[in-house]
């Protein structure tokens, strides 16, 4: 016979005003197995806890029901107290008689509240009788982090984790780390040069003895769970031996073949053996195998001839490596909506209609024009330049419904950079709303208008076309209520910031969710902004949604702190609310495996003594299992049950309803 204690909390008057707690205690005492009941003013208070523990010991209780506030409030408190009194914490259950009873049934005669409290308490008692002792699950932690994406968010995360003393691998798909930030000229609102603040961080990451850079690499496969990930990484063939290459540049100097530079967004050419930009980290070139004549048809090979240390190796192949990690940081960044999306803005056909990112390259001292603002078509200096904001943003019909958030600021910056470089030029900005929420952001935009003379027009551009060698921009100024036409020399589209093309593939590899725009889902948008539903996988930067550099960096640091917390001990403990398979009744139909949202179910072989496989069984990986219980209902042979929410427990509660 169990020895159950029932503690009915009055919660001051919160419960007592509509529930006769003493009556509940008295009546409950009559139930089989209940040996101790009491009503108390504040169960959660220190004296309450003390008497609670004392009662457990004195009455040798082996099961506790606390009828009090929601378990979301104090379940942990009472379980901890029960544990302190020598009980298994999972032998303590809460009946929610405040949020779901006394506070929602205002009957002053206490009849309604008392009756419902009796029911709720009795159901909890019956459920408790079927409780089993559970022990917290401990899992070992591999103290090594993987950062996917070597942009500013990823670099920051890696540096902070490495500074915390743990090994980090950065996987970057491009030949260099740096990401989109490496393309920017100056950064708002302080106007410091992007390269000047980014390059030192890139170099620091390269030189850090705890950080390894896997550039020109991609994550192929992720197995395992928090603390114990096993990740397969594809290192694409660079055709250059990284261990011997000195980055002298002789090879790309001499290479006779050119292609459009991805980094310069088609504004200039690069060689076929190349580093994406001069400050690349690592400063080791790769060969574009889709264009190299030596690789394609065994002709040329000049680079190999001029290479001093003989680092060129045309036989190199893609390599798969599998490594162990305890945490994964996803910092895969963003893409920009292609210009070709905008039919009415010239369809990407008018050469001098460029994107904001292309403007960054034009304005950048290390860009194709050395920082001079020149038209891509003829190299002349544009005297009238029109910036069109919200190109694709806030356009549910043909673009994306959200605001890309950073365009208002960078467009203001562009007008300033333009005025600083073309003193006699005029910049026009078409905007829908100026969104400059951020420290010193509004002042920055005002500066662009008041000091640098940008003409802001509140309206959207309907159409851009060429006429007599000019680009005609036809839009509206809604503030004056008129149509506006500007003869421009160049047009800059603030194209929408969008999720990566590869976003869904990466999400599926990692088992994380994404929204309708294919940005990754945070565990909780406010309170867990860098966690995902998959424990041990964290998010940083624009793969979550549009954000600027300060935010991306903050997120990089935030995931580092989460990772370091995870790495702070050798083992981690978690709630034992996980599924369990009855090995006797499992018939290996794998319905559970298909239903499980966490890939937490494995196929396990059962072998006889000779090592022959006698049958297959489903087993639950407690590290991955999140305890949703979907598998329990999917199981036809009722071979799976969920600890803490077993069929027995639920039926017991129903039976006394």
């Amino acid at each position, binding site marked *: 016979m169990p020895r159950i204690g029932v503690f009915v909390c009055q919660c001051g008057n919160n419960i007592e005003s509509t529930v006769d707690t003493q009556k509940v205690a008295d*009546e409950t005492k009559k139930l089989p197995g209940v040996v101790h009941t009491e009503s108390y003013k504040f169960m959660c208070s220190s004296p309450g806890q003390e008497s609670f523990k004392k009662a457990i010991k004195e009455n040798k209780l082996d099961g506790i029901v606390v009828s009090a506030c929601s378990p*979301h409030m104090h379940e942990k408190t009472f379980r901890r107290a029960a544990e302190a009194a020598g009980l298994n914490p999972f032998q303590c259950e809460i009946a929610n008689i405040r949020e779901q009873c006394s*506070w929602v049934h205002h009957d002053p005669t206490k009849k309604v509240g008392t009756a419902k409290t009796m*029911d709720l308490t009795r159901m909890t008692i019956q459920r408790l009788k079927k409780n089993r002792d559970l022990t917290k699950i401990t899992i070992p932690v591999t103290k090594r982090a993987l950062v996917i994406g070597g942009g500013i968010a990823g670099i920051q995360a890696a540096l902070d984790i490495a500074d915390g003393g743990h090994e980090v691998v950065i996987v970057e798909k491009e030949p260099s780390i740096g990401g989109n930030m490496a393309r920017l000229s100056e950064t708002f609102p302080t106007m410091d040069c992007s390269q000047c603040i980014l390059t030192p961080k890139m170099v620091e990451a390269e030189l850090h003895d705890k950080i390894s850079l896997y550039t020109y690499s991609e994550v192929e496969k992720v197995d395992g769970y928090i603390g114990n990930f096993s990740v397969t990484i594809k290192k694409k063939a660079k055709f250059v031996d990284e261990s011997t290459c000195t980055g002298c540049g002789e090879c790309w100097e001499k290479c006779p073949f050119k292609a459009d530079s991805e980094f310069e967004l088609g504004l200039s050419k690069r060689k076929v053996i190349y580093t994406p930009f001069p400050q690349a980290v690592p400063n080791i070139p790769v060969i574009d195998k889709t264009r190299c004549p030596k690789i394609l048809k065994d002709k040329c090979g000049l680079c190999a001839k001029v290479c001093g240390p003989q680092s060129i190796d045309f036989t190199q192949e893609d390599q798969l490596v599998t490594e162990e990690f305890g945490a994964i940081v996803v910092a895969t960044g963003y893409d920009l909506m292609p210009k070709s999306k905008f039919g009415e803005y010239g369809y990407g056909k008018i050469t001098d209609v460029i994107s904001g990112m292309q403007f960054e390259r034009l304005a950048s001292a290390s860009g194709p024009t050395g920082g001079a603002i020149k038209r891509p078509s003829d190299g002349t200096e544009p005297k009238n330049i029109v910036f069109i904001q919200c190109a694709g943003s806030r356009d549910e019909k043909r673009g994306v419904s959200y605001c890309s958030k950073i365009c208002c600021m960078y467009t203001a910056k562009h007008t300033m950079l333009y005025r600083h470089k073309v003193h006699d030029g005029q910049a026009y900005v078409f905007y829908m709303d100026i969104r400059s929420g951020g420290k010193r952001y509004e002042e920055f935009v005002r500066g662009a208008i008041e000091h640098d003379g940008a003409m802001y027009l509140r309206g959207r551009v309907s159409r851009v076309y060429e006429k007599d060698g000019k680009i005609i921009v036809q839009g509206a100024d809604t503030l004056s209520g008129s149509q506006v036409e500007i003869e421009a020399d160049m047009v800059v589209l603030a194209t929408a910031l969008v999720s990566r093309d590869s976003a869904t593939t990466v999400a599926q590899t990692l088992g994380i969710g994404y929204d309708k725009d294919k940005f990754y889902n945070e565990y909780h948008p406010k309170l867990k902004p860098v966690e995902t539903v998959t424990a041990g996988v964290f998010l940083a930067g624009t793969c979550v949604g549009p954000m600027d550099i300060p935010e991306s960096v903050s997120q990089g640091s935030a995931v580092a702190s989460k990772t370091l917390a995870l790495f702070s001990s050798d083992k981690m403990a978690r709630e034992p609310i996980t599924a369990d398979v009855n090995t006797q009744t499992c018939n290996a139909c794998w319905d559970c495996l298909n239903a499980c*949202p966490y890939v937490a179910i494995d196929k396990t072989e059962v072998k006889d003594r000779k090592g022959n496989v006698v049958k297959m069984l489903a087993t639950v990986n407690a590290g991955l299992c999140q305890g949703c219980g979907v598998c329990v*209902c999917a199981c036809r042979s009722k071979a799976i049950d969920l600890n803490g929410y077993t069929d027995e427990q*639920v039926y017991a509660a129903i*039976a006394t*309803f």
Partner: protein
Amino acid sequence: MSEEAKMESTSSFEPKIMAFVCNWCTYAGADLAGTSRMEYRPNVRIVKLPCTGRIDPLFIIKAFENGADGVLVSGCHPGDCHYTTGNYHARRRWIAFKDLLDFTGIDMNRVHFSWVSASEAIKWVELINNVTDEISAMGPFMDFKALNRGKPESNEEK
């Protein structure tokens, strides 16, 4: 009929309704109704489960067998499941289960399926009131009562 008379006529029968709800959305929504001090009909008894995906259709039948006059199932809105897809499993299972339940002779109007998020306290209150009214109007569910013999220490207080 006056409001009072209405109260009179319905108070003669107080239905018992069992609610199976998920821990993350609806349970929290019901908690919020409490912290907001809203008031609703006292006929519902909640059984908390981690996810609607954990709700075995047999729970529903068992509830009827044990004296429920109505059953309510509620979880996170589609797309908002704490466990990513649990509520989709529940929904799919529910669609298949509906016909079976109908076949067993349970009036489908006695079983309600709803989505209530953690912030939808008002929706929860309205849901409970509506369901209670509806089940009240239908009268007690007697068909399974005979099945439930030898029930343990049950509701002598009632």
